[in-house]
């Protein structure tokens, strides 16, 4: 592959109409073709799009999958979330570094392979996992990690990287010609709503027989609430969007599933794309939008060709495009917008910023997206699972749906279960199911702590295991992460804080600084240097971040600390309270002395007064 055959940066801009609102697509294409977006490329892009160079630099430096530094032809991104580490990611990291002869953040001398860490890639049920460019590799062990590097080094005539890396494909559509992924669905418990069969077009033909107002009424009657975690009533959101001023409106499906431990949308996207697109089209009909966007997280790029194919099939079947189902004037089409590695873009206003080619900063509210969203037009953003539910509600009727679950939380909920259990995967359970009821099916024999809703949710202990999964009790976007005996809840909380530090957009003070401070003090306690007063300090600091942060990320980022302090306080106290000899119980005097000796030894060598010893 000679450099001259690569499309130039200017050509890439031109392919996207030199449209500044398509900056994400442009920088992703430049990254893919040139392995980086360097200063020169930024100047070209800024010139072509008529935007400030610093705006391009701001975007490139914001997203985890974009970089201005040269990277290898292949970028290995090892997932470093807590589940992956529990399943051996640290050993994989060591094996990769050893086999490649480089460290994380570096590229091999021949420019072939870069090694990086990345936040949760939605594969916790088959961890440890990594991305090689867009290709997912799962269930790694040190041997397969080394073999992976050797395979990449063979430099065969570069064909399909998927065929090279994935010799065996996963179940269901993972084996589809356009996916060819080793990912498995682990669909352990299909339920009545999301994983029942629905004929293509079944919901849409019901919808067009109703007026948009009737569709919205059906949604409101079903009492469907947003599945992303916040639980806003979906029918009301649709109604607000429809009522907003202006002829042009947008519908966006949020497939930026980034909450560590969550992977249920990945299975929906793989096995029920028609249901999702049907839900989006029904929503478009109801709110009066002729354009929909699917914001697909960069980690799920491997699904894109397949999803494009499903969209094309639907266009052929008159389920998308002009005059859908022969109904004159009902036009709706869907474009896939790729993300590029930023958890914050799951927040709906940050997602809209990203769709417009900007940094993924959340926006000031009001105005709310339903008033002024994508390109300043009224926009309804719904979670993937929400839209799938909506399609089924229109197909089967509101009363069918609301008969499932509880009064305040109707329908089913998809759970992404992982951690210390023998059958991790996706479970569709009626709302109101107790946490404990999930343990036997997933093979969690002796859970001592469960993180419900991912890091932004809460860590609960045995006294909470009989609580119900619902908006009124244990609210969750779907992550249920099980921790068995011997797991250190403080160390887990620290990993979660590391995640929030890494994923904060940095727009507001408390989230940008407060998360760093929370992690600092938590780590001090873990290291045995904590004091009893640190517990109050953490509580007060966590409360400040929670109350003063601008968006949902900062308002929930202290939860790992606050919920473990609330539910596992003895674990903290054990480490900060003095034992009988006057030292902190968590403090290792010998280790501290050894560290001090080592510092003294190496500094003596440095000034030429000590001897280097083996």
């Amino acid at each position, binding site marked *: 592959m000679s450099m001259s055959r690569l499309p130039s940066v200017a050509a890439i801009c031109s392919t996207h109409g030199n449209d500044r609102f398509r900056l994400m697509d442009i920088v992703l294409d430049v990254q893919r073709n040139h392995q980086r977006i360097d200063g020169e490329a930024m100047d070209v892009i800024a010139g072509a799009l008529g935007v400030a160079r610093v705006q391009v630099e*701001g975007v490139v430096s914001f997203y985890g999958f974009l970089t201005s530094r040269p990277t290898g032809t292949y970028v290995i991104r090892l997932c470093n979330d807590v589940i992956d580490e529990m399943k051996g990611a640290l050993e994989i990291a060591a094996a990769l570094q050893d086999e490649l002869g480089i460290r994380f953040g570096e590229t091999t001398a021949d420019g072939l392979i870069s090694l990086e860490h990345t936040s949760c890639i939605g594969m916790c049920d088959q961890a440890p996992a990594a991305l090689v460019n867009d290709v997912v590799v799962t269930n790694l062990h040190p041997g397969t990690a080394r073999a992976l590097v050797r395979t990449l080094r063979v430099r065969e005539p570069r064909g399909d990287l998927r065929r090279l890396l994935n010799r065996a494909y996963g179940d269901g559509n993972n084996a589809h010609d356009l996916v060819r992924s080793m990912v498995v669905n682990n669909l352990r418990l299909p339920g009545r709503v999301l994983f029942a069969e629905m004929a293509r077009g079944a919901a849409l033909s019901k919808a067009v027989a109703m007026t948009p107002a009737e569709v919205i009424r059906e949604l409101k009657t079903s009492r469907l609430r947003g599945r992303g975690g916040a639980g806003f009533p979906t029918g009301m959101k649709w109604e607000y969007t429809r009522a907003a001023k202006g002829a042009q409106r947008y519908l966006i499906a949020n497939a930026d599933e980034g909450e560590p431990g969550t992977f249920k949308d990945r299975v929906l996207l793989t096995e029920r794309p028609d249901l999702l697109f049907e839900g989006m089209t029904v929503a478009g009909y109801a709110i009066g939008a002729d354009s929909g966007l699917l914001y697909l997280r960069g980690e799920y790029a491997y699904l894109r060709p397949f999803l494009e194919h499903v969209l094309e099939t639907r266009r052929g079947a008159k389920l998308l495009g002009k005059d859908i189902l022969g109904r004159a004037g009902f036009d709706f089409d869907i474009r896939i917008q790729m993300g590029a590695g930023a958890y914050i873009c799951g927040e709906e206003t940050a997602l809209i910023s990203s769709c417009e080619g900007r940094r993924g900063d959340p926006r000031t509210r009001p105005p709310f997206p339903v008033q002024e969203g994508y390109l300043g037009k009224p926009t309804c953003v719904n979670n993937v699972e929400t839209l799938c539910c909506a399609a089924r509600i229109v197909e089967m009727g509101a009363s069918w749906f609301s008969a499932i679950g509880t009064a305040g939380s109707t329908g089913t909920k998809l759970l992404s279960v992982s951690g210390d259990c023998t059958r991790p995967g996706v479970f569709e359970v009626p709302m109101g199911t107790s946490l404990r009821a999930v343990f036997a099916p997933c093979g969690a024999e002796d859970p001592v702590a469960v993180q419900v809703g991912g890091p932004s949710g809460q860590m609960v202990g045995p006294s909470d295991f009989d609580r119900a999964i619902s908006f009124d009790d244990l609210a969750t976007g779907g992550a249920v992460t099980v921790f068995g005996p011997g797991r250190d809840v403080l160390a887990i909380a620290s990993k979660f804080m590391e995640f929030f530090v890494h994923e904060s957009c940095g727009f507001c*003070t408390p989230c940008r600084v407060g998360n760093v401070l929370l992690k600092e003090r938590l780590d001090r306690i873990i290291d045995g240097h904590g004091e009893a007063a640190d517990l109050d300090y953490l509580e007060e600091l966590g409360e*400040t971040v929670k109350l003063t942060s601008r968006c949902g990320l900062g308002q929930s980022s202290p939860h790992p600390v606050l919920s473990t302090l609330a539910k596992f306080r003895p674990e903290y106290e054990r480490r900060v309270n003095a034992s009988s000899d006057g030292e902190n119980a968590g403090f290792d005097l010998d280790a501290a002395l050894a560290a001090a000796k080592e510092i003294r030894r190496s500094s003596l060598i440095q000034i030429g007064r000590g001897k280097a010893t083996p």
Partner: protein
Amino acid sequence: MSEPVVLSVDGTKITAKPGQTVLEAAEDAGVYIPRLCFMKGLTPAGSCRVCTVRINGRPQAACTQPAAADMFVENDTEELLRLRRNVIDMLFVEGNHFCMVCEKSGACELQALAYRFGITAPKYPYLFPKRELDASHPEILIDRNRCILCGRCVRASKEQDGKHVFGFVGRGPDKSLAADSAHGLGGTNAAATDRAIAACPTGSLLVKRVGFAVPVGRRRFDRSPIGSDVEKPPEGE
């Protein structure tokens, strides 16, 4: 939108003109709500969070929240003063602020707020970040050690100077101020007279060679504490 509305701030009824935010309405009524990223004439950002108030019980940034009829605003409460003090503390430990040698001392809004809140030393540990200086421009210096990422220069350049000299790069704790050029501020069309430079609340953007034209002791906040221009003197004075 077109009619004035009445809301209460700490139990006192105030009237807001159409389109005013809670912060602006309070200010017109002589109530000072502390702020850093807010600047009159610029689109509010709500990024520093110093102006956090409770509105009908919910914490909100007063600078971005439109005033509405019957809002119950809490401003001068023990809790809010503590939260604001914590946020100001965070800004101090996040950067490298050395007031005693800073040529902005006495005219710095961050320093002035610290005095107002009685902060003598931050309670959080210093993070001692390594930050870049940019002296490439003949007239203007960027000292990122003192930057609090308020974005006032970014907005002023765009909205008032009609330029696009500044922007933000990086994410989270790595977020930093950048100039619109591969060659630093010197590569941009920034001028010392730009309102963007004067918009800096701290000593992060400095015009070179005029630092001590006004001696310490005779500067803006040496004469009167921050907020005193807004606040009505107490009755009877």
